[in-house]
């Protein structure tokens, strides 16, 4: 037990403190920093692989008391350990890759520090043993990814970063609410296999809140808007990690929350179908958008969203099917791993191309297969993986999800989902044909004559990932039995459900049929698209969610920052009035006091001769004083209102005295009203 605890603590704390260390070392020596970052990552990778050995059998839980009813707890189980290992693996590849990629970049110390911080947080999320811990690391991850995204510090990066932060915060809030509700309903915050004894409605609310929270991170439509902006602007290793690992955190969270709230036994058809539709829409829209992109990284980013759609679709199927849904969930988990591998690989290769050519626009590249053969080959492998071609890893997981779809039934909306699924597969294939042909085939432009293959430290990462893509594609069965099945058991699927999927045939006739169809669709889309220039189609801006988000943000901005001319005008008028009044004040108060004594004297003897005079005096007195009060009240009110509307106070000079007097008069009135009310009530 103690050993596991130390192991866990090391895994999470090593990158955490390593981050500080790296930042400190960074100012001393770049070399030392690189070695330190690399060794930290590799050591963590080794430790996670040791950790995986402990993950068989019952989950091991360690923690320390943090809040009442809630401790910070880590658990070692097949699912956590698998994802942690995956994280460490891809992180190592990306870290090695980045040494060359970022060679001439500024702020490298910050980059590596936050890279390690995010690493720690990411591991923390996957290893978390309850929702509190998960949330803690989730939020740290959210924040620590920001410096990675805005690393280039140009306008685009900041815009994307701001969008990212806003979305992440919204997501965090929803998530926190969901967790708190969960805590209130169940009395603890541990992962479970279904809440018992609560109404469906409450469960749905909790899941919706958590789903939004995680969905933002996972880039599920309509919360994806930050993703296509943020992933391309980040430096390539960071985008590889963002797309490869960090968005998995969201999906992982969705799976965790879904199974904690509903569990396999208490599945809900409603929730299942909602999730399925969210998944399918995400898949379809994102792949459609991906086809229209020129920027390679942006295209990959859209594909990330699309692939998340696959996973969410699988999760939805699992929720829909309940106990029977083990296959669908297994497919999803499988796809998480696969996507992590091939998408990171793709980002890294595209990054390598960018590193050599300085160009991300696919239409301006070409013929690089001869200049960068290894990169081209790795890209091909990863593309085949993502396209779902047999012998590469994507095929197995996609087929599993597709098979699970078949369990839903036939006809009706399920049929539509089926069709959309195949169309999406076709779209994916088309866009990767497009990527490969545009970038690597054809004739190279003149200026890329001297382009060499990527450097060795870059290639190490890329090749490691490509090999994994290939390896998983060749031995899907092994992977299934060793990694996915224990994981399913951990999530609450019992013996019968598991035994039926102990072996799955992924090369049935039906599967090959749909593969062929989707290949055909892909080629069709590609040829038609290139022939008729459909890939250059642009929709009006108001068509996307992004536009509305920006409009809203703009509105808020104007509300908060803009001064309209109207306000300016009114303010100046109020100021003038007050100033005039102050100019008069000196004389008028003197007159008021004098007038007062006169009025009081005259009131004793009212003779006819005096009546008019007295009247005039009294009138002047009252009018003067009332005027004074009313005017100052009103203009003070105006001034106050307008001032509070207009942004900067320093511009306008107000006489504070008058203003505060008004305030006090207001309060006096309030006091009087209070007095009268209380008299009425008591008397």
């Amino acid at each position: 037990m103690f050993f596991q605890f130390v192991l866990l603590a090391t895994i999470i704390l090593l990158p955490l403190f390593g981050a500080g260390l790296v930042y400190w070392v960074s100012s001393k020596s770049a070399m030392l920093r690189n070695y330190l970052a690399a060794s930290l990552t590799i050591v963590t990778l080794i430790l996670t692989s040791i950790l995986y050995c402990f993950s068989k059998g019952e989950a091991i839980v360690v923690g320390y008391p943090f809040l009442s009813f809630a401790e910070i707890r880590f658990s070692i189980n097949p699912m956590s350990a698998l994802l942690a290992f995956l994280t460490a693996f891809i992180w190592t590849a990306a870290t090695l890759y980045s040494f060359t990629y970022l060679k001439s970049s500024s702020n490298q110390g910050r980059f590596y520090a936050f890279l390690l911080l995010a690493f720690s947080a990411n591991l923390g999320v996957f290893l978390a043993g309850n929702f509190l811990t998960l949330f803690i690391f989730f939020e740290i991850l959210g924040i620590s990814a920001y410096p990675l995204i805005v690393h280039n510090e140009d306008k685009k990066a900041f815009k994307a970063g701001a969008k990212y932060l806003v979305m992440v915060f919204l997501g965090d809030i929803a998530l926190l609410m969901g967790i708190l509700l969960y805590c209130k309903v169940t009395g603890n915050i541990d992962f479970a296999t279904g809440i018992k004894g609560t109404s469906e409605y409450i469960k749905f609310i909790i899941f919706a809140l958590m789903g939004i929270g995680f969905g933002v991170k996972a880039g599920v439509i309509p919360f994806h808007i930050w993703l296509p902006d943020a992933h391309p602007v980040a430096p390539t290793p960071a985008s590889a990690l963002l797309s490869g690992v960090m968005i998995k955190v969201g999906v992982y969270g969705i799976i965790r929350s879904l199974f904690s709230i509903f569990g396999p036994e208490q599945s809900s058809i409603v929730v299942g179908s909602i999730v399925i539709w969210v998944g399918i829409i995400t898949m379809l829209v994102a792949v459609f958008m991906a086809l229209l992109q020129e920027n390679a990284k942006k295209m990959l980013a859209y594909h990330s969203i699309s692939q998340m759609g696959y996973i969410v679709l699988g999760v939805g199927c699992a929720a829909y099917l309940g106990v029977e849904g083990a296959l669908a969930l297994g497919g999803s988990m499988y796809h998480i791993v696969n996507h992590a591998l091939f998408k990171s690989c793709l980002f890294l290769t595209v990054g390598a191309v960018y590193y050599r050519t300085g160009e991300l626009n696919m239409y301006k590249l070409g013929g690089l297969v001869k200049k960068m053969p290894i990169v081209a080959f790795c890209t091909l492998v990863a593309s085949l993986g993502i396209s779902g071609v047999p012998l590469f890893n994507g095929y197995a997981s996609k087929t599993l999800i597709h098979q699970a779809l078949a369990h839903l039934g036939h006809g009706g909306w399920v049929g539509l989902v089926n069709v959309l699924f195949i169309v999406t597969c076709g779209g994916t294939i088309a866009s990767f044909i497009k990527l490969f042909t545009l970038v690597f085939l054809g004739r190279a432009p003149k200026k890329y004559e001297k382009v060499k293959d990527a450097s060795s430290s870059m290639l190490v990462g890329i090749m490691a990932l490509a090999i994994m893509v290939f390896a998983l594609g060749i031995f899907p069965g092994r992977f299934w039995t060793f990694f996915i099945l224990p994981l399913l058991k951990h999530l609450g699927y019992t013996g019968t459900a598991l035994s039926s999927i102990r072996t799955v045939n992924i090369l049935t006739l039906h599967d090959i049929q749909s593969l062929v169809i989707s290949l055909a669709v892909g080629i069709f889309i590609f040829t038609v698209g290139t022939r008729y220039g459909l890939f250059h189609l642009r929709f009006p801006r108001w068509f996307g969610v992004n536009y509305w988000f920006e409009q809203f943000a703009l509105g808020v901005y104007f509300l908060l920052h803009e001064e309209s001319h109207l306000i300016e005008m009114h303010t100046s008028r109020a100021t003038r009035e007050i100033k005039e009044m102050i100019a008069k004040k000196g004389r008028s108060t003197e007159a008021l006091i004098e007038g007062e004594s006169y009025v009081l004297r005259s009131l004793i003897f009212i003779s006819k001769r005096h009546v008019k005079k007295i009247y005039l005096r009294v009138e002047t007195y009252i009018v003067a004083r009332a005027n004074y009060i009313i005017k100052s009240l009103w203009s003070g009110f105006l001034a106050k209102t307008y001032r509070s509307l207009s942004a900067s106070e320093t511009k306008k000079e107000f006489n504070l005295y008058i203003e505060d007097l008004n305030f006090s008069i207001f309060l006096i009135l309030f006091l009087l009203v209070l007095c009268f009310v209380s008299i009425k009530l008591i008397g």
Partner: protein
Amino acid sequence: MNQMVSMIPITAVALPFLIGIAIFFTGKNKKLMGFLSSIAALLSLALVSALYSMLVRGNMDVCCPICFGAGFTFCFRVDWLGLFFAGITSLLWVASIPYSIKYMEMKFPDSRARFFGFFTLSAATAIGVTMAGNMLTLFALYELLTIFTYPLVVHAETPAALKAGKKYLVYLLIGEMFLLFAVLSTPEFAGPRAFAKIGLISSEIGSKMLLVLFCSYIVGFGIKAAIFPFSNWLPTVSIAPTPVTGLLHAVAVVNVGVYGIMRVILNVFGIELVRSMGVGVLLVFISGATIIYGSLMALRQDDLKRRLAFSTVDYISYPILGLALLSPTALVGGLLLLVTHAFLKLSLFFCAGAIDIQTGKTKVSELSGIGRRLPFVSTCFAIGSLGLIGMPLTLGFVGKWYLWQGPMETGQPSAMGVLIAGAILCAFYLLYVVYVLFFKQSNVDFVCDLQLNWTMLFPIGAGVLMGLVFGIFPKGLLLLVNNVTMCYFGG
């Protein structure tokens, strides 16, 4: 509950008070002045910790009544609630002394004796308020606090500072007028050890009168806690020297307002009565409005200190909201957020002051690139901001965790909405500053000729560190806060 008569509470107030008076006569002797200021702060901290140990040992009230005549009793009494507030203030007072000495030396070399005299007096009075044993003592010290802070607000002696001082006084004194009315209308609270009882106010005086009294109390204390319609004074006085804005107007003074509201609801009316009167909702709306207003205004400020001041307006309403929800969990959350705010906002203000001293920049828009020039200060600012936002592993998160459970327990969706909106806006207005500090490109190249030494950096770092340490190991603090809540909610 047992009672224990001790002179420590009054000593903890009177001794720093007397030292504060002595500081006025130090004149040109700067060393003696600094020495006396630190001694006063350390003494009060020592005495407060002595009280803490007394309370822990016996779970007793520590009481010290001084009778001045029929119906006119001054009395000091310490219980968990009071000690909680006194502890925060005295701790941060000690932390802020080195900073203040250095800051004043650099920024306002003139009439420092006056400044430190009133600074000590204010802090001592703020601690005294929390140790008051009845409403009369509370009121008396409360008003003195207002008066003693006035010279600090106008310390710069510019027309703008004088104006701010005027505004400050008008707002607070009006509040005190209401408060006096309420205090006098509940003369049973002028007796000795009045706060030992809970819900002493008799509900026989009629529900309407109760409402009037409640409103008067809330307005009276609320103006100091900067609740919504009366919150504008707080940003205005951010013109004062930074130690004042930091310690007094972000910690001591506003906390005293919150403390007053807590006393009113927990002791004077009692949870049960407040619940049956249904005024909790009223308070929820007021504090909610304050949160929204404060954060929206903070978003618009370009002046860093004003932004932070509006952020104080926003943040200081969380404890009130936690109280208004009338649930123990929410109260725990509120109190924790109060501690968070005290530690971190102090640090943030001190960061702002340090930046001002170093570079002369006070506007947010001018701060770009400071992060690289002043890495320590800026990093502390960033961590402090994250802590206030409620990032996990900071104290802010712990507070948020408990506070957010409040509306769920009591079923008040509007409160939940306020919390959410507040959290988002808070993140916006604080993180924008961090963004400017670290990421925004600066066109202007500026010189940092003054070197900040540890006396200024230490309090900044200490505050942030406290926020982090308590955020990772909240058990001890939770125990204290639970002690406070248990006195009123039982169990």
